[in-house]
């Protein structure tokens, strides 16, 4: 075996440039798979890891969600809110409004989304993880105060908005009491473009009391699904519809995101697989050329007593060695690329996440490289082993 390895190594070295290019082909294919999967896992972990901290949450919307479309069906009524609060097992309850309004600052008007709700609930959801850069958080009786996200402060207007500046929201003057830090986590990053108001402010100043989001926290996570069902039934009964309300536990959201990530990963791996197919055609080509060039040598080996299986194993060994090296180089490149990509993407999107290079992904990469090597090497190797010695020897 040691000698066969040595012989295979020699003939690889003999065709150094071509071998290096082939190794590179495999390496790029494997690196693509490893890096894309690792970035995918990193993203998933960043998001679901964060969401797991909110595992006792149930979100209730008056909307139909199918796939990625969200169709809002109306507003929750006071009766809905009371009925939901009556359901057992609920620790905290908070009704919120999501809407958009026209906001003016120093003569520039922009439509901006706002969130209003129970200040304590919002605080635990957003202020704790993100933090305030300036000022303070809303108080329940802040009638005309608001807290703004990072992009509202820095990007939307010609000038940067600070605490104590005045914004005109739907014609009403509001004072900025606080400015959020730039959200650096994936989940909470959607607060950057928002304005936060108290419920009283939206009701009295903006004259909307549309409640289109209810947030519930349960005592026991195990009961979350059951409670979500009860909430849905109670609200649907009030509206006489089957599918007015949609109550999602954080668990099912994580699951849904898991599905989405599986699809994303599938697509990424599919793209990488194309690279790998190209690489394996490369190996096959290299090996076929090698067989053709060495027809004479194969003939000589057979003439001096090599069995077909000897020739087959020599050539298979050669292609496996090339792909093994390609696999190792690919895994290393892939792991490094994953770190670089996640760092770059994290900086560009302003979020913190690191690629997760799983050992099973590396192992899988190696296995794929070897399988590709053996499969792509098999046809040329068999061709070599089946040559008639006399014809092969005659070949110059």
């Amino acid at each position: 075996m040691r000698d066969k390895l040595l012989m295979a190594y020699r003939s690889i070295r003999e065709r150094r440039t071509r071998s290096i290019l082939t190794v590179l082909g495999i390496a790029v294919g494997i690196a693509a798979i490893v890096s894309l999967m690792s970035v995918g896992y990193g993203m998933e972990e960043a998001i679901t890891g964060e969401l797991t901290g909110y595992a006792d949450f149930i979100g209730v919307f008056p909307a139909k969600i199918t796939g990625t479309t969200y169709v809002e069906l109306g507003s929750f009524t006071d009766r809905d809110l009371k009925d939901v609060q009556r359901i057992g097992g609920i620790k905290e309850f908070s009704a919120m409004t999501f809407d958009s309004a026209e906001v003016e600052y120093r003569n520039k008007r922009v439509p901006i989304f706002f969130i209003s709700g129970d200040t304590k609930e919002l605080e635990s959801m957003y202020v704790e993880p993100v933090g305030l850069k300036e000022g303070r958080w809303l108080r329940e009786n802040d009638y005309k105060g608001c807290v703004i996200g990072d992009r509202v402060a820095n990007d939307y207007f010609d000038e940067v908005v600070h605490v104590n500046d005045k914004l005109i929201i739907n014609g009403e003057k509001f004072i900025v009491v606080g400015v959020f830090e730039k959200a650096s986590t994936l989940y909470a990053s959607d607060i950057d473009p928002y304005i936060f108001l108290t419920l009283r402010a939206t009701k009295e100043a903006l004259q909307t009391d549309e409640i289109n989001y209810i947030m519930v926290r349960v005592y026991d996570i195990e009961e979350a699904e059951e409670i979500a069902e009860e909430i849905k039934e109670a609200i649907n009964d009030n509206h006489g519809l089957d599918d007015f309300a949609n109550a999602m536990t954080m668990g099912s959201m994580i699951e849904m995101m898991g599905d989405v990530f599986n699809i994303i990963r599938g697509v990424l791996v599919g793209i990488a697989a194309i690279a790998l197919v190209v690489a394996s055609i490369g190996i096959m080509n290299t090996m076929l050329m090698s067989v053709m060039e060495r027809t004479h040598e194969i003939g000589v080996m057979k003439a001096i007593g090599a069995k077909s299986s000897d020739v087959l194993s020599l050539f298979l060994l050669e292609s496996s060695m090339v792909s093994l090296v390609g696999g190792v180089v690919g895994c290393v490149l892939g792991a490094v690329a994953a770190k670089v990509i996640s760092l770059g993407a994290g900086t560009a999107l302003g979020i913190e996440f690191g690629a997760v290079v799983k050992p099973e992904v590396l192992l899988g990469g190696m296995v794929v490289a070897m399988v590709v090597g053996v499969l792509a090497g098999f046809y040329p190797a068999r061709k070599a082993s089946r040559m008639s010695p006399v014809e092969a020897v005659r070949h110059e």
Partner: protein
Amino acid sequence: MIRTENLTKVYQMGDAEVYALHDVNLEIQEGEFIAIIGPSGSGKSTLLNMIGCLDTPTSGAVFIDGIDTGKLSENGLAEIRREKIGFIFQQFNLVHTLNALENVALPMFFAGVKRETRLKRAEELLANVGLGDRIYHKPSEMSGGQQQRVAIARALSNDPEVVIGDEPTGNVDTETGNTIIDILEGLNKEGRTVVVVTHDAEIAARVGRTKRMRDGRVLD
């Protein structure tokens, strides 16, 4: 030792059938040194390839040591080539990526001989053909005569009973040719059967028996 029975090889050239060998009946005794001579295209090399188990006949049979080679599997033929026959080619046919020592050890490698044993034996064989100081040279670093001597050492590596040479002096100068004939003669004196195909009158004059071929037939 070697016997052919109505050995025939036909090549299809378009519509025409070309008889490279036509009912060849030849018997070579153990320990004999025989030269097969004849013009180009007379079928000498084809006959040699049949005897060397490199090629299969269209009809007829080749017996080596009493074994009908036509009944052997591909692996069986490989075994005969490896164990019973040493082949020397006109073009030397060394593996150019391997050095002299490794080339000589190659048949033993295919025979499954242990590394230490085969390298030691290869070294001895190379010393016997006067190349003891060239064992780590690649074929490209050696003259034609040296390469042919490596090829002879390789042919002997599994201690075959039969040595077959296809114009072994055809690609070397006269002096080297004489050395190679000396070596072959020595092998014959050790008791090996030696069969050569040659254009070389020198060889023909020195061997025990010559057989003339023409148009695929052995002449009496």
